[in-house]
């Protein structure tokens, strides 16, 4: 135990950095992804077919590709398009579009479940469509989106471990490096797992709190 604590003390900065990067990348990807998903979801639900078609194609493509492949592709393939991203940037890009595609589909489902009569009611009091979206449709959709959103957030944190393959110094890669130095495989992987669990339980708490805010009654 003393030995472990000693090694932990030595590795503290590396672990903290990894943890911080994991949290940062996940948070940024959830934020960007949700924004992309919001636009995609609105486009898929209320757009004319000319808008719907390309969004539908993109969303289906991205959802059909494994996250690991998305990450590798954005790291190695974007270079050919003349876009040079760092490992962190391409990881963030891959996770954001992954999250965006899923959120798009979730938001479309939630919006489509709201009866069209709600739009009529909004129009009847003189609201323009963008305002109907903001004040009538999205608040109702949020109730359905919240639980799934929390899930997607947790999935994203777990998916961020895959960024270790392109050399992003997030929590898993840092742990691997530490274990490579001190060979305390069991202890440090257990700690790593516990930290992921901790992040996700915080996300779940936040989600429950937010769900209550959007709940009826």
């Amino acid at each position: 135990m003393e030995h472990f604590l000693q090694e932990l003390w030595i590795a503290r900065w590396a672990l903290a950095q990894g943890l911080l990067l994991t949290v940062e990348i996940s948070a940024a990807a959830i934020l960007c992804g949700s924004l992309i998903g919001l636009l995609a979801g609105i486009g898929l639900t209320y757009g004319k077919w000319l808008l719907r078609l390309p969004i539908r194609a993109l969303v289906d493509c991205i959802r059909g590709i494994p996250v690991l492949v998305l990450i590798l592709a954005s790291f190695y393939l974007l270079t050919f398009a003349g876009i040079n991203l760092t490992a962190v940037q391409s990881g963030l890009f891959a996770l954001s579009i992954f999250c965006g595609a899923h959120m798009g589909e979730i938001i479309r489902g939630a919006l489509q479940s709201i009866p069209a009569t709600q739009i009529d009611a909004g129009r009847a009091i003189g609201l323009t469509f963008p305002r109907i979206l903001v004040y009538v449709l999205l608040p109702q959709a949020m109730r359905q989106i919240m639980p799934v959103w929390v899930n997607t957030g947790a999935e994203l944190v777990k998916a961020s471990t895959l960024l270790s393959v392109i050399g992003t110094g997030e929590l898993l890669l840092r742990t691997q490096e530490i274990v490579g130095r001190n060979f305390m495989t069991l202890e440090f992987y257990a700690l790593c797992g516990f930290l992921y669990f901790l992040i996700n339980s915080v996300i779940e708490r936040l989600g429950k709190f937010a769900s209550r805010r959007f709940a009826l009654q």
Partner: protein
Amino acid sequence: MTLLAIRGLTKNFGPVEILKGVDLEVNKGEVVSIIGASGSGKTTLLRCVNLLEDFNGGEIILDGVAIGYTGEGHARRRLGERELARQRAMTGMVFQSFNLFPHLTALGNVMLGLTKVRHMAKREAQQLAMSWLARVGLDDRAAHLPGQLSGGQQQRVAIARALAMDPKLVLLDEITSALDPELVGEVLNTIKLLAKEGTTMLIVTHEMRFARDVAHRTIFMDGGLIAEQGPSAGLFRNPKNARLKEFLKRANM
């Protein structure tokens, strides 16, 4: 003074002609009811007036302004979203299925248009909304969500929501059809009160006695046209149109 003038209004859903050239005038302060069988075009007519449906021909003039479209012939085109929204705010509409916003309280439902369309300050909007809820007898339910209210109460909130916007014309689309029989009375009483105060209303209804008692004039629609119209009392007593006679007989009038 003519508030609403509809001239030669036509509307198709694909190949089906719903309105085949409707002409109708409604004066300020007048209460006009529209009766007729399902599919005769009553609701579509109302939705056209509130610009919830586009229409193919003819014009709707509200308070001297042709609404919904600009230009004529090939140049005729639908107005933009902002302009449509502005014109829709001139009419209030109450729906058969209430269509309250389920995530907002009764007060929130009435306030939304006041703050976001009429740009009133929150306090002012709240006061006006409360006074309208009081007029429909629901000020003690202001903090309730629609799901916690009975059908009749929900419909009264919907009436307050529409009236609080101070519309020139109020459109009521079968507002008691989705209510249990014992709840119909409270809603109709609210409308009677509004009629007494001189609110201009166009009412699509299946409540024949209500149409006869409250409306100054009644319109009978049949197959997308106005088949007969006249002062309510006379129209119900001596219907001339054969279809209207049969329609009233089936409605036990």
